[in-house]
């Protein structure tokens, strides 16, 4: 039961990008093309899982007063690993993500989950939380990346759909377009979320009322 809660929280109810609005910097910067967004999402997911595991294991050892520097140290370690691995095996992604890869260290989602979840929960749950939070982040980023890439470049994951010289709205490739896209995604996501949420609450209320009558 708790696993289901964690999964729902990570991907939908507390979606890091669309609900908590954390980690906006990479969201705005790298979503120009779908592939970069996907790569960024996976890198963050990996760091999130690993740091959540380690922090959860050490949660009783780390003194409360210096917990933030300790968390940052752990996160930075994994970011360095990710950076080296990507540089070695996917140099294209490394060059297009550039500094934003190193900046995962200060990504609010990771520190937020370390502080808010991993430092208070057992290892298994923390790892799952990292996984699902990362998936939520990856999903949001990739859909934004697809949206912007299709509109601005006429391609999807680098596969050309139509000639960009014939039709493309290059506005969505600029940083102003990133803000607009982000805003639109948050709006649409929340409208859909609230509609579903209201329906499920009605259902719950109806069931409770029935039980009372019975």
């Amino acid at each position, binding site marked *: 039961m708790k696993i289901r809660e964690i999964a729902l929280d990570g991907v939908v109810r507390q979606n890091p990008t669309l609900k908590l609005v954390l980690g906006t910097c990479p969201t705005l910067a790298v979503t120009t093309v779908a592939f970069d967004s996907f790569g960024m999402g996976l890198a963050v997911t990996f760091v999130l899982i690993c740091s959540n595991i380690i922090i959860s294991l050490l949660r009783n050892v780390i003194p409360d007063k210096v917990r933030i520097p300790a968390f940052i140290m752990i996160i930075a370690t994994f970011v360095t690993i990710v950076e080296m691995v990507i540089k070695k095996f996917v140099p294209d992604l490394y060059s297009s993500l550039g500094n934003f890869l190193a900046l995962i260290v200060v990504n609010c989602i990771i520190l937020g989950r370390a502080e808010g979840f991993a430092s208070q929960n057992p290892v298994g749950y923390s790892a799952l939380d990292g996984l699902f939070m990362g998936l939520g982040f990856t999903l949001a980023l990739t859909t934004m990346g697809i949206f912007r890439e299709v509109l601005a470049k006429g391609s999807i994951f680098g596969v050309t759909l139509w000639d960009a010289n014939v*039709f*493309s*709205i*290059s*506005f*969505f490739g*600029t940083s102003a377009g990133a803000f*607009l896209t982000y805003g639109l995604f948050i709006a649409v996501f929340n409208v859909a979320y609230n509609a579903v949420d209201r329906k499920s609450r009605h259902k719950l209320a109806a069931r409770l009322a029935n039980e009372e009558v019975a």
Partner: protein
Amino acid sequence: MEKYVFSASPHIKSPRTTKRIMIDVCIAMLPACIMGCVLFGWQAIVVLAVATLTAVLSEIVYRLCDGVKFDRILKEFDFTSVVTGMLVGMNMPAGIPVYIPVFASIFAIVVVKMLFGGTGKNLVNPAIAGRVFAFMSFAKAMTTYPSAIIGSLSGGSITDAAGTVVTGATPLSALLGGNTSTLTNLDLFLGTGVGGVIGETCKAAIILGGIYLVIRKVLNFRWPIVYVAVTGLVTVALNGFDFAVFLPSILSGGLILGAVFMATDFVTTPDTKLGNYIYFVVLGALTAVLRHFTSGEVVSFAILFMNLVVPIIDKYVYPRPFGYVKKQKEVK
């Protein structure tokens, strides 16, 4: 006791509603639109019609999505979207692909106006934002200007450095980009033989519309003049006090169109007289300086930028509250 009627204020209602003002603005823009169609042919009509229809439709569709009943939308329809759509159309060159005015109008109405709360709540002028959106997105189509059907009255033309005639170049590009122009100021004033967007080339028609607005008390004649004059004078100063560039610089590009119809939007100008002076003087200087150093058409960007500054101006420049007396400085 029946002598008195008790009611809540306001007791006197003015016939000057948003709707009437906006209809006036529409009427004022008609001469420029008609001259655009005369100078650029039927393609201009298509662009104007598409832009206006899209703007109106996107406002209606947005409000329908918002759950407003259709008859209420019709009742509350205040022609601001017509003005926005016409301005978006007037800011496009004739003969561009039809989808560009569609996107620009949708962006202007939905993103810039409706998402910020509708008429009177928008932070920047929707038409300006729509134009800038189109300019950033479709830079090539937006800067490919057809030349006017009616040629230059003086037989002048715009030539590049090699001496060949450049068709579709705007006189502004000649002024800034090293092309030489033999167009006279009269050509620039009437838009004959001048390339540009639909609404901007015939200055005479725009000024005619402006005069109508001044007579109808919609527009204060002071502000367009301040804006245009400051731009011209700063351009003169930047060119080493060469007063020969004064008239060409103010008659080229979208300066007059922007000054009459776009910079003076009620919603996006400061509330006070002093604030307006600050706004239009800075706007004029900004336009001239940016034109000089970027060698491009910047009126819309300058207005967009100054629109964003307006809340700051309004924060620091406010009218004296009624009955407020300034504290005398103590005499030592």
